[in-house]
């Protein structure tokens, strides 16, 4: 393996355009509503699903527009931070 093994990171840290897969979803720290994790799961943020950041806002680079599967959702940063993702290795042509 030439590339270092990919590690988990919060979706909020994923660079725009980079492909990744969801590894886990939680309700984050105490400040977020308790049902947040389940809600995100219901929208399709589930382990194994492909995600990609489509756009980021102007101020504080928030909110972010996220492609999940075939749908797109706008998330605030603390919401995206509840989703952990693993970047995909770039595919060789």
């Amino acid at each position, binding site marked *: 393996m030439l590339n270092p093994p990919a590690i988990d990171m919060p979706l909020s840290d994923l660079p725009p355009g980079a492909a990744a897969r969801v590894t886990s979803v939680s309700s984050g720290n105490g400040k*977020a509503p308790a049902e947040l994790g389940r809600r995100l799961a*219901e*929208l399709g943020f589930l382990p194994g699903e492909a995600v990609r950041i489509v756009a980021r806002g102007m101020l504080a680079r928030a909110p972010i527009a996220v492609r999940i599967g075939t749908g797109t959702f706008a998330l605030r940063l603390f919401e995206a931070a509840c989703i952990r993702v693993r970047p995909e290795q770039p595919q060789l042509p």
Partner: protein
Amino acid sequence: MDSAPSAASPLIALVGNPNCGKTALFNILTGSRQKVANYAGVTVERKEGSLLTPSGLRIRILDLPGAYSLDALTPDEQVTADVLFGRRAGESRPDFVVCVTDATNLRQNLRLVLSLKRLGLPMVVALNMTDIARRKGIMIDAERLSAELGMPVVETVGVKTAGVKALLKVLNDTVAPQSEPRGAVWRSLSAAEIEHDQSEVRRILGLVGGDRVDGVTFSDRVDALVLHPLLGPVILASVLFLVFQAVFAWAQVPMDAIKEAVTAFGGWVGAALPASLFKDLMIDGVLAGVGSVLVFLPQIIILFFFILILEDSGYLPRAAFLLDRVMGSVGLSGRAFIPLLSSFACAIPGIMATRTIQNPRDRLATIMIAPLMTCSARLPVYALIIGAFIPRRTLWGGLEMQGLVLFALYLAGVAGAMGVAFVLKRSGQSGAMQTLMLELPAYHWPNLRNLVMGLWQRVEIFLSRVGTIILALMVILWALSSYPEPPPGATGAAIQYSIAGHLGAWLAVLFKPIGFNWQISIALVPGLAAREVAVGALGTVYALSNTGEDVSGALTPLIAQSWTMATALSLLAWYVFAPQCLSTLATVRRETNSWRYPIIMAAYQFGLAYLGAFITYRVALWFGA
């Protein structure tokens, strides 16, 4: 044989994710006239229609609000879940479920199908938007999908009738009233169950051929511009600005035509009728009042033309995305943007649309500021005053001075709303963080039929208001303004001796510090029922207060002569904030289930209006206006 729907007719429920084209399908199935939009959660009202199957079976059909799951988080989803579990008081449990799915987004939509399957009700899947899916190269094997799901699957194309026939046939063959309610106990899905459902969805998609995750789509390319950190806000500002410019520039010709038609009709009535009480009522009451409101129909059509296109194309949630940080800074959710934007048309649908906001405090804050968005009923008032006092002048860059002032008034309403939201945020204890989680649906061309239907609904609403509330108030106001008649030998205008004249004189004392004369003070009273009535009321008051020649013509030159610039600006400021709409307060009462909030709302709005008008008047006087 046609039969009227009765309680015995079987009831089917249309269920589906937001943005799956469910409402468009409902329209075709029932032929009902209903608004179709493209952002999450427009279907907040209960909508029922009925249809007749080929064999003559009459079926009642209920259009349930869009939902992502049966674990309700918003009041919207609560309605859907309650009806499906048979928990909703006064609502019978559906006998049959039609689950509408978006063929281009089955990864998301099929999870809801699996949840619905657990209800144990007979159901069919309508595979919607198959035309768009095909164009994207997504071919779905409907027969295989049907076998995997264990229920019929019918391909439909939201706004076309071909697939609807197939759906009707399935309904015809399978729908029957359920003799006894089938047991479905409500239970939240665990995270593991949701994950299990998703792997089932992945397995099925692998078999039927819908498992295709696009790389860069058309919507992505548009979003690269529209959601761009710098370009996006510029596009949003330009779009909004263009709308307000168009409202003035494009409406001029049809408005002049309506004005001339009303004047010509007034002249004809004046010549045809003998001098009588009825003639006075027609000319001073009905024509002067209703005519001056009717003139604003073109502007309302143009405004709604743009709002409907922005809604239907999918741009509105993008605007919410761009404004989320600004909304968040005053403690609102980005989700609040859509109800607030609807409030630019009318606060009532806007307040009803807040049902899609899950946090109760957040929802309340949005309700409280919704009436500060400049609704279309303010437009006649603004247009009248701007037309009379702001010169028609083209500034640098081809900008219209009048359009610019109108834009500033809209901004003033938004700024006021932001201020009030900020105070509300400060006064309440800070709870959990506000969520956004807003779907950005794929763009599509606005549907011409939906646009024409939506515009026609607005025209109907406006004209029926003109024909009912406004007409009735005009006649009452005319009577109040005409009686008692002036004593013999009176020197002033007739209206000064009437009931309205006395009331106006009393109110004028209250409004004198903000520069309103007694004519304005009278017009504000019927204007409480609906803002645009104030324009008609001014028309009537001035028609009756003029001692000289016939004034059934234009109101604009009259007020331009008799008001100072300071008074005009003060009245504009008053209308930015004042709660001049009883229907809005009634809606707030209904939505919050208490008198507390409408009372607080009316109080703060009157307070702001008086303060705003007072400052405007004094500053304008100081500048010598």
